[in-house]
């Protein structure tokens, strides 16, 4: 089945629509001068939609199709059988996958809690507009601009039990022996090691969005509250928090989606280990798809994950809109 669809896709790349859009220089533009706005709109939007269809939607449909088969990508010549819902059944009843889901939930919950708390606090402090806040904000933002895989790889070095800087600093402040604990090697510490790095990296993101929220609050609201003799504490809970809330929720949405997909940082840092304590669903999925080559099974897995993210995100967006309306 796969061969046929890709063949068709190949021909589709050369639709008149895309060709016209790719050749907008003057000579062509003069010829199509008489085009209506409507036609231009489609020529402008067409290539984008086409690219997304070809590289996002078409693969998604293909994944759905594969998820009902026992196809293995490392044995393309083997006959492919349709197995119905068996892949889905096996995934949903597999206890190991629930462990991966739990690891993902732990990671999601704690990264979001920490990032919201620290991010909001930082934004609140930066909004005091002290001298040079602009420069320090930029410095705080730096980690999130970097390559997660490279960062994860380097944190592995910082987490080394004897020689790593992280262990040394912890030992310095707690008086423990720096080789007495292994952040990446111990079952009880490894889930926290990824939470720490993700928080280090992505707190600035939450901070920036909160800052945007804080800056959107007009001064006159505080002035009015001051005239009404509302205490600073009351102002904080009745003005600042509710007005930043939609922004904060937006930040949580973005972080939630991103961390549900989390792969690069953690795969470099722990590789899912020790055992499978930090094997987030994405890492597990990669293992099924590209190491065990159970393509059909992994496709069903991918669909389940996608539906989960999409479903959770949609419910969340509804809640977000309600908060915005208030």
């Amino acid at each position, binding site marked *: 089945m796969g061969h046929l669809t890709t063949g068709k896709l*190949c021909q589709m790349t050369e639709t008149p629509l895309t060709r016209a859009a790719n050749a*907008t220089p003057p000579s062509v*533009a003069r010829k199509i*001068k008489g085009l209506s*706005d409507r036609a231009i*709109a*489609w*020529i402008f*939007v067409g*290539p*984008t939609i086409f*690219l*997304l269809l070809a*590289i*996002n939607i078409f*693969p998604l449909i293909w*994944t759905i199709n594969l998820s009902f088969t026992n196809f293995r990508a490392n044995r393309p010549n083997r006959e492919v059988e349709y197995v119905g819902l068996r892949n889905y059944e096996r995934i949903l009843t597999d206890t190991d996958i629930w462990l991966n889901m739990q690891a993902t939930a732990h990671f999601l919950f704690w990264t979001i809690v920490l990032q919201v708390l620290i991010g909001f606090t*930082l934004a609140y*402090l930066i909004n005091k*507009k*002290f*001298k*040079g*806040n602009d420069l*320090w904000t*930029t*410095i*705080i933002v730096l980690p*999130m*601009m970097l*390559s997660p*895989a*490279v960062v994860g*790889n*380097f944190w592995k*070095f910082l987490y080394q039990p004897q*020689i790593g*800087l992280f262990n*040394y600093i912890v030992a310095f402040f707690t008086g423990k022996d720096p080789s007495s604990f292994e952040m990446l090697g111990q079952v009880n510490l490894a889930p926290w090691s990824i939470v720490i790095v993700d928080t*280090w990296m992505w707190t600035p*993101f939450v901070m*920036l*969005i909160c800052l*945007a929220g804080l800056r959107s609050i007009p001064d006159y609201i505080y*002035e009015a509250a*001051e005239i009404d003799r509302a205490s600073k504490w009351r102002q904080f809970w009745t003005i600042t928090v509710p007005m930043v809330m939609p*922004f904060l929720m937006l930040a949580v949405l973005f972080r939630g989606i991103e961390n*549900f*997909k989390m*792969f*690069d940082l953690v795969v470099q840092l722990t590789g899912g280990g020790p055992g499978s304590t930090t094997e987030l669903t*994405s890492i597990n*999925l*990669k293992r099924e*798809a590209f190491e065990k080559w159970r393509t059909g099974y992994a496709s069903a897995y*991918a*669909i389940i*994950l*996608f539906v989960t*993210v999409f479903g959770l995100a949609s419910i969340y967006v509804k809640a977000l809109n309600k908060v915005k309306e208030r």
Partner: protein
Amino acid sequence: MSSFSVTEPSTRSKWFAGSLVILYALITMVPLAWIMLTGFKSPADAISYPPKVIFDPTLEGYVNLFTTRTRQTDEFLAANPPETWYEEIVRQYDMVIAGPSKFSERFLNSVIIGFGSTFLSVFLGTLAAYAFSRFKIPLADDLLFFILSTRMMPPIAVAIPIFLMYRQLGLSDTHLGMILLYTAVNISLAVWLLKSFIDGIPTEYEEAALIDGYTRFQAFYKVVLPQAATGIASTAIFCLIFAWNEYAFAVLLTSGTAQTAPPFIPTIIGVGGLDWPAVAAGATIFLLPVMIFTVALRKHLLRGITFGAVRK
């Protein structure tokens, strides 16, 4: 202070806030500073206990990053004295430089794929954003949501069929394949961001141009494009940073010719395990451009980071 304002924080609270933020900034910088320091250490210094802050700087990590080395017999070493400073560094370990490593190739791949996909996504994204901003498109909101929702898919989920598709089309491990893929991932951000910029340009200018006899195309590239230049530039930086940092697709779909630096850097192996100074040197060279970019262009970046949520 000339005028008193109830919303202006007191000097003391400013001082307090400032010192806490600066403290956090300094702590957050420690790992990055450590990466850069480690790049200038010898392997022995890099793994010493307690961790060394003061050490004899050496370019060993950088030499190891760019070269491959082999061990040689004493006679060979005696007969061929080192000619250059980098040969000399390698000689400490009774080794000679056998040739260049693959790092520069991988780095170049990152540059080609990064700039290629950035150009394409900004080009297509500007067209689409203009259309969404100015024309009535049926189901525009649904289409925009569809464009954004493509970002929700876990990369690994899309990677399975793309892997199969690219194998069929001969696109696996090619620059073109990676450019198209990164463009598809980036275009959602590009369209959303650029739309928010173009929405901010008053339509009166184009309308005047249209009345003067310009065609829609001319109005678009002579009137709108110059005004959207800042927006286009900051969108481009975002697309570039994403493509530069991307790892999941790169590690699954490339293995040689088109492999970018992120999957390559962690695999730098020295004698007896990971060569941390060389890894650190690679990370420094790879991360530094992004850090400089961020600091230099900070004013334009904030809007992109927050998907257009931050507006000036």
